[in-house]
């Protein structure tokens, strides 16, 4: 009995830490509609700053708790800086563009932390006076865990009071519903946003600092915690504090007891809970449907048009260059171009569902990595020839997309995006933990093309034919009747429904097509590299694809190609430098502020008229 009670309390303590991160995230999302991917980075900074302070001060209870508070305040201040200097400039940019800004922050904080705090994992200091355990019905329970539970409950209570009993809190809740109306009632939104951003950052910094005695500080904390925090926020309902607490509790308890039954299931468990909750309650336990009606009057997204004659000429010229390139380029350039082509196809498939399809995916790596693994497993276990494996990879991921899509198209907006992230994490966990079949972290090696295509130049041509064909096929689909319906589903779900079109079925098909093409790219990728690792399915891979699409611009059909080329080239150029993430992150931020329409969008505005396209925004 005591064992189960302690197990329950341990789960509750885990939930408490998770709640503090998720609570800040949900507050920020509720008010500003910003999906702050950098939230996990703030958590990491909280841990590092607190660690530094605690280890430099005498080990007393005073200095321990003081350090934690100071660390949280420091993170809150960083939140203010980020909000005022970056995000405030972007509130009128498309929401997706804000994501790119927050990716930039992740990269910058990652490298700054490495530089300031070092690369090795730090073991958390104990809390003076609370490092022991107490006995509960014969089982030992760390005292600090009980303190964590109490602190989280206290924070839950204080935030509830703040939101329900103060004018500031009422304004925050009003902003969650209708920001524009709030402004028309004389409330300065900027100041409110800054306040909320401070509070949210403060809370996550506090969460990071408080977990030190249970864990420590390392450079992987940012992305590790962000996935969990997103799950909690989505399960609880975006913007709901109580929901976040309940969701954190459910997830932490399920993991705490799940580990007893099925030790391998912990990673999958959390995301499975999320998938189940979202299918039953699409807006989370305490969430309300997103209101799209009262968004600020933004520019309607530009109409996509078939390529005018001059643009086609440019395309032909480019094709000629690609065809003739092997005559002059060295092997290294060809390999880079092969990679660019493959990633272009993958990000084009993501764009296909994001742009014309109107469904943002945070988990596209599931299909890209899925295709890579499908091909690799076929070759590894069944000695399938390359040609057949390349044909089966998109079928496999299409099937995967059929399953994942069935769940996802029930949701919209951020919820849909989060669910794709959850499924991608499930796929990643399976590949990562099922070592006996997939090789786990060691990956699958020696997957080479058939003999005839083994030459770098031949493989280059093969890749180009498949990828250019794939990109053009996706592009052409946008202008078929199916493409029109797809765009209509994006622009006005209600009207589409009213004229008798099955919205979900079309979105589902879009999802499957995107998944299949991403799988094709993944299959090619594995043959170009000769191996595959779980990283190809990880969150950071999904983020890469998002970045490529955003870099290119979400309003232009060839944006993803331009974005992939720019991203891959940039990556290749600077990844040999020290602190390249800092440089890359800064570049993203500059790009976001300078070119809110992406690279291709920028060229379209600048030179679009020459090619017969209408300028945008």
């Amino acid at each position, binding site marked *: 009995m005591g064992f189960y009670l302690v197990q329950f309390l341990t789960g509750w303590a885990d939930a408490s830490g998770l709640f503090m991160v998720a609570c800040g995230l949900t507050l920020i999302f509720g008010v500003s509609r910003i999906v702050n991917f950098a939230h996990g980075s703030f958590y990491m900074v909280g841990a590092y700053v607190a660690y530094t302070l605690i280890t430099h001060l005498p080990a007393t209870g005073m200095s321990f708790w003081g350090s934690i508070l100071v660390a949280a305040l420091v993170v809150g201040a960083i939140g203010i800086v980020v909000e005022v200097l970056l995000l405030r400039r972007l509130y009128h940019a498309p929401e997706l563009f804000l994501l790119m800004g927050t990716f930039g922050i992740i990269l910058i904080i990652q490298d700054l932390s490495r530089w300031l705090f070092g690369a090795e994992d730090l073991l958390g200091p104990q809390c003076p006076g609370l490092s022991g355990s107490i006995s509960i019905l014969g089982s030992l329970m760390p005292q600090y865990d009980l303190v964590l539970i109490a602190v989280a409950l206290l924070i839950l209570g204080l935030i509830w009071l703040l939101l329900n009993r103060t004018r500031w809190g009422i304004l925050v809740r009003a902003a969650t519903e*209708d920001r524009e109306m709030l402004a028309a009632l004389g409330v300065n939104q900027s100041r409110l946003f800054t306040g909320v951003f401070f509070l949210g950052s403060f809370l996550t910094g506090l969460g990071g600092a408080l977990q030190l005695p249970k864990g420590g500080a390392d450079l992987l904390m940012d992305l590790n915690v962000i996935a969990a925090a997103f799950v909690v926020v989505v399960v609880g309902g975006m913007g709901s504090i109580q929901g976040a607490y309940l969701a954190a509790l459910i997830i932490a308890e399920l993991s705490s007891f799940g580990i007893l039954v099925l030790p391998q299931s912990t990673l999958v468990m959390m995301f499975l809970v999320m998938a189940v909750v979202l299918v039953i309650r699409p807006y989370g336990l305490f969430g309300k449907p997103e209101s799209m009606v009262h968004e600020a009057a933004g520019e309607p997204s530009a109409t996509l048009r078939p390529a005018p004659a001059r643009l086609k000429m440019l395309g032909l010229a480019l094709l000629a260059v690609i065809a003739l390139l092997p005559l002059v380029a060295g092997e290294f350039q060809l390999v880079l171009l092969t990679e660019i082509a493959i990633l272009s196809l993958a990000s084009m498939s993501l764009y296909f569902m994001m742009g014309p399809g109107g469904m943002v995916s945070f988990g596209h790596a599931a299909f890209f990595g899925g295709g890579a693994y499908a091909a690799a497993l076929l070759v590894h276990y069944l000695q399938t020839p390359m040609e057949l494996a390349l044909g089966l990879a998109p079928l496999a991921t299409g099937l995967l997309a059929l399953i994942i899509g069935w769940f996802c198209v029930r949701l919209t907006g951020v919820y849909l995006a989060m669910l794709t992230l959850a499924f991608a994490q499930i796929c990643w966990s399976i590949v990562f933990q099922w070592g006996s079949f997939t090789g786990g972290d060691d990956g699958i090696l020696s997957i080479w093309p058939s003999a005839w295509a083994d030459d770098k130049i031949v493989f280059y041509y093969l890749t180009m034919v498949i990828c250019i064909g794939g990109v053009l096929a996706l592009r052409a689909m946008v202008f078929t009747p199916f493409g029109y319906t797809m765009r209509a589903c994006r622009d006005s779900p209600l009207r589409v429904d009213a004229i008798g079109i099955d919205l979900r079925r079309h979105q589902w098909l879009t999802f499957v097509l995107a998944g299949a093409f991403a799988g094709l790219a993944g299959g090619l990728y594995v043959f170009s590299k000769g191996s595959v690792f779980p990283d190809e399915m990880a969150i950071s891979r999904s983020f890469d694809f998002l970045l490529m699409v955003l870099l290119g611009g979400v309003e232009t059909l060839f944006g993803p190609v331009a974005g992939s080329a720019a991203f891959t080239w940039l990556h290749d150029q600077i990844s040999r430098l020290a602190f390249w993430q800092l440089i890359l992150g800064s570049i993203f931020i500059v790009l976001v502020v300078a070119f809110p329409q992406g690279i291709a969008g920028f060229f379209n505005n600048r030179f679009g008229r020459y090619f017969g396209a209408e300028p945008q925004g």
Partner: protein
Amino acid sequence: MTEPNHETMLEVSGLTAFYGKAQILFDLSLTIRRGEIVVLLGRNGAGKTTTFKSIIGLLPPADGEIRFKGRDITHLPPHKTCNLGLGYVPEDRRIFTQLTILENLEVGRQPPREGFVPWTFERLFDLFPNLAERRNQDAGTLSGGEQQMLTIARTLMGNPEMIILDEPSEGLAPVIVQQLADTIRRLKQEGVSIFLAEQNLNFSRFICDRAYIIHQGSVCHESAIEELSDKEYERYCSI
């Protein structure tokens, strides 16, 4: 301050506004004087709401000038326009459904303004007795008419010197429209200037001093409300 004097409250000149690439307002000009009730009549899509949104600052105009109490507010953000004493009641009400009635009113609260009796919860509940009984109820549970009253009350909490009302009578039962008319006349007695959009001519005749008609994005008629003939109204506003 019951009779209109000749002090200009709001002056719009040469207003041009776009929604995306579509031009909605073409060189629109109008004036509201202190203490007046002025109606902006026009068909659906004539540009009434766009005019209001431009004045408030929700839709920055492409060209033209907007002055409130002599001050240029053309490019002010909405919260600053509101702080100057210009209240806005949108067409679709936009109450905060998950907040209680009292909380909705609290959101609208702004400091008192010189020369006006400040609005308090009690004075507003006196004006809108229906709301008083439900002060702790979620605003989402109110009927359409009560929601309309709440949006007006919420805007009054900002102690405005002038209110812009976008089609307040739309979708309300006749008895509620009557109540609304009484309320608006009561506000005039308090010295609040009122500029409202309407498609209901009888309602407008009952409460207004002057009328503008907007047609295809510009003003095509201006007169005292008594001088507006049915024929002139139908020419621009009948469907």
